[in-house]
């Protein structure tokens, strides 16, 4: 929680909401598996991941989606202000062992709807220079 809470009247299309870099290692994926209940072995077992044709263990798409939205909630000053949030999963995030993968997220205001009191934030989410989430958009209610 940093900075002032953005006011709808002061928001313009193109406004930058900031960036964040998220580190992902295997332990992080195991933690997400446990917390979410998604125990698909492709997210923690290299042997199974390779068997089904993946380059290695990959992050849950829902981990990436869940991790990057923190940038928007913190910007809005209230994660509960995110009223709609969608994405397409474009490319998997391969998580090495040993080591980590990194997810980079940046966001900008894509549209402002004064009537409904919301703004759409468009997120660019990459890992290793490739886009991993596509059409990643959050609608945020602001006062």
């Amino acid at each position: 929680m940093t900075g002032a809470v953005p006011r709808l009247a002061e928001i313009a299309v193109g406004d930058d909401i900031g960036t964040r870099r998220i580190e992902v290692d295997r332990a992080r994926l195991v933690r997400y598996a446990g917390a979410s209940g998604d125990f698909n072995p492709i997210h923690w077992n290299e042997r199974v991941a390779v068997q089904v044709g993946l380059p290695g263990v990959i992050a849950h798409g829902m981990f990436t989606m869940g991790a990057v939205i923190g940038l928007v909630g913190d910007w809005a000053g209230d994660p509960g202000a995110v009223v709609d949030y969608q994405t397409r999963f474009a490319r998997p995030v391969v998580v090495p062992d040993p080591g980590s993968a990194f997810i980079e997220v940046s966001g900008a205001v894509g549209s402002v709807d004064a009537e409904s009191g919301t703004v759409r934030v468009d997120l660019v989410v990459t890992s290793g220079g490739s886009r991993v989430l596509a059409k990643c958009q959050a609608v945020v209610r602001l006062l």
Partner: protein
Amino acid sequence: MPVNSAYAGREYPPGPVYEVAREKLDEFADAVGADHPLHRDADAARAAGYPDVIAPPTFAVVIAQRAEEQYVGDPDAGVDFSRVVHAEERFSHHRPIHAGDRLVTVLHVDAIVERGGLSMVTTRAEITTEDGSAVARVVSTLAVRGSDPEVGA
């Protein structure tokens, strides 16, 4: 076995009540790295106008997944999880989920579409309170690869 297109249009009645615990929200927030105080500090949440600590925006997937299990866990549905890739996800919140919520979910199989050797399966979980007021909608699309008979897996 391919995805059974006869399941399109199915609706599954609400399962057992999901009671949202503070500890579960804490665990989930920790897993996605959500460190906003509204996920953990009940006084801060009340000061912000919520009844209790609130869930991160994608927490609803935990509840939706339980409902989806009725469908994807049915062998006759033909959704083989070793061939599944998550394609799209969307959350629409009428209000944030908060600790103490008692929620039920009605699952709909909205569409099963064949596209370039993939079956695109779209489900919609309508999450409401026990007495039926809308809380969240989770729409999820899975891409299921066709079976490769030569592999024999």
